[in-house]
């Protein structure tokens, strides 16, 4: 246990140092690098948020794109109506959270593939509604956001730091959940939902809370993204890939861990950038290959490799409740 605590402290310290280093990125004054940094922070937000419902609770959610798009359009419309930018971001996060709560009440009783499909189709429905509701959203013509009257470089820094701040919040949220009763409850649900409910865990409450948490920061990130690129259109913000990529990132780093999704997001961005740069027409195939390789050779993610949690899935399948993570959660 002592050794574990030391490890834990080291991990927290290293994380803080890494965040501080990343936050100093604007010192290099390379706008493209800053753009990549903003993108990386955004990826981390999406992956970490998905981790709450997908990693901890084990529900295969594909609704990240729905929350993201909803946030982007809410933020854009509110900003267009005159709400100051930061308030629009906060409002977008809350709207996404409220939406996730209602949606969660409706679909979280579904299991497995049924839940996956329901969550996937939500983004499609929102996409169609956004496209059809021309008077509010501009429909297929897309939506322009108000131009910000500050210098280009100040903008680049503003969006980078804001996105990073939300990413840190997402990391904090994962840390908090993992050490809180909620995280323990979610892990029980992942391993055996019926049993969890029998030992007195209010599974509906836990799942809906997790779903709402997995939406709030994604919604805010969507709004920030809209402000950042000035122009959004339905197929971009509701893209299915926006739902799938965070899952790949989380699996890459280690789903159900606190740091894994963030590490996965950074690695994913690096790979995407390399592949994208060097393979003009076959980067989709390269991404596909990465996914396939991940499934076969790294099923527990990178952190799983380090901490030896690769067996977790097998254990979970047998329905035992004594895996590493559960014990740790119980002690917390």
């Amino acid at each position, binding site marked *: 246990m002592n050794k574990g605590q030391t490890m834990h402290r080291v991990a927290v310290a290293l994380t803080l140092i890494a965040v501080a280093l990343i936050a100093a990125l604007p010192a290099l004054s390379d706008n493209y690098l800053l753009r990549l940094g903003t993108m990386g922070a955004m990826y981390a937000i999406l992956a970490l948020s998905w981790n709450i419902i997908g990693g901890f609770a084990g529900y*295969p959610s594909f609704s990240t794109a729905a929350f993201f798009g909803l946030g982007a359009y809410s933020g854009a419309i509110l900003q267009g109506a005159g709400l100051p930018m930061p308030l629009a971001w906060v409002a977008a996060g809350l709207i996404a959270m409220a939406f996730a709560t209602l949606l969660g009440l409706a679909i979280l009783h579904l299991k497995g593939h049924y839940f996956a499909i329901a969550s996937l189709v939500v983004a499609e429905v929102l996409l169609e509604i956004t496209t059809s509701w021309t008077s509010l959203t501009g429909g297929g013509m897309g939506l322009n956001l108000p131009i910000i009257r500050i210098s280009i470089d100040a903008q680049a820094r503003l969006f980078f730091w804001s996105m990073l701040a939300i990413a840190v919040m997402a990391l904090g949220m994962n840390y908090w959940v993992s050490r809180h009763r909620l995280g323990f409850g979610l892990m029980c649900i992942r391993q055996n939902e019926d049993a969890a409910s029998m030992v007195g865990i209010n599974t509906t409450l836990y799942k809906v809370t997790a779903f709402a948490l997995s939406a709030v920061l994604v919604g805010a990130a969507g709004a920030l993204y809209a402000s950042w690129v000035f122009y959004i259109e339905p197929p971009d913000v509701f893209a299915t890939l926006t739902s799938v990529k965070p899952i790949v990132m989380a699996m890459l780093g280690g789903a159900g861990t606190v740091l894994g999704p963030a590490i996965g997001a950074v690695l994913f961005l690096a790979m995407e950038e390399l592949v994208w740069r060097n393979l003009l027409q076959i980067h*989709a195939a390269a991404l596909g290959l990465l996914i396939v390789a991940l499934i076969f050779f790294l099923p527990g993610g990178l952190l799983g490799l380090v901490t030896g949690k690769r067996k977790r899935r097998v254990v979970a399948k047998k329905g035992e409740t004594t895996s590493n993570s559960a014990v740790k959660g119980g002690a917390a």
Partner: protein
Amino acid sequence: MLYAQILVNGLILGGLYACIAVGFSLVWGVLNVINILHGSFVVLGSYVAYFAYVHLGIHPFLSIVLSGALLFALGYVIQAGLINRVIAAPVLTTLVLTFGLELLLNNAVLVAFSADYRAVQLANPMGSQIIGGIVFPMERVMATLLALALTGLLYLMLAKSKIGRSIVAVRMDPEAAALMGVKVKRIYAVTFGVGALMAGAAGSLLSVVFPISPLNSTEFLGIAFVVCVLGGLGSIAGAMVGGLALGVIESFGALLIGPQHGLTIAFSLLILLLIVRPTGIMGRRGYE
């Protein structure tokens, strides 16, 4: 008369939808795998039909044999070589795996055939027949009828043949089937192959209706999803009912609410159905 025409339009479309979905439904039901590759399988079937027609002069309605055979082989190999290895893993794993394979396959198709839209231009177009004031576009009607016939054949195969019985047995209870001497993994591969075969055959039939391009794969996949959830999983009858229902709903929705809302209606219905009746119209308890 207008409503009768819309109903006919919807039923013809629905038959095509059913044919797109039936293989997807079979794989989902028996293997508990959502095959994201399905849309690209349909597209590949269309390409086989296109090239067979342009270069060999084989009518697309006959090339279903060719596209079915090729796609069966591809499906069998993918299942036996890759998916079987993770078939026991959680839902998310197989889902993400087929998604990765779809990115690979679709990109390969794009590079091989380019995204330019092609169309099979029949030398002897069948035109339209007007019966009782209702227009029947014959190419679509024939494609739909053939689709229904193929689906019937699949139903017979599952009900009567030895391999079909094994597939049904594995769907009911893989462990019991294994005890009875069924080679479960082999049946999985055959089932996946049959699913791909149906997709390929559907692709051949659709080649006379829709322009062909790798970009269509997501649309086909979306239809397969909706049809399966509408009709209920894994049963041939479910896919038929789901397909016809979707075709009719979409047609009347476009008429009554406006053509830009056709897809919205279909997807909203899907969510609603998932929430209140996840087992579909046909109401069989799904295997989760």
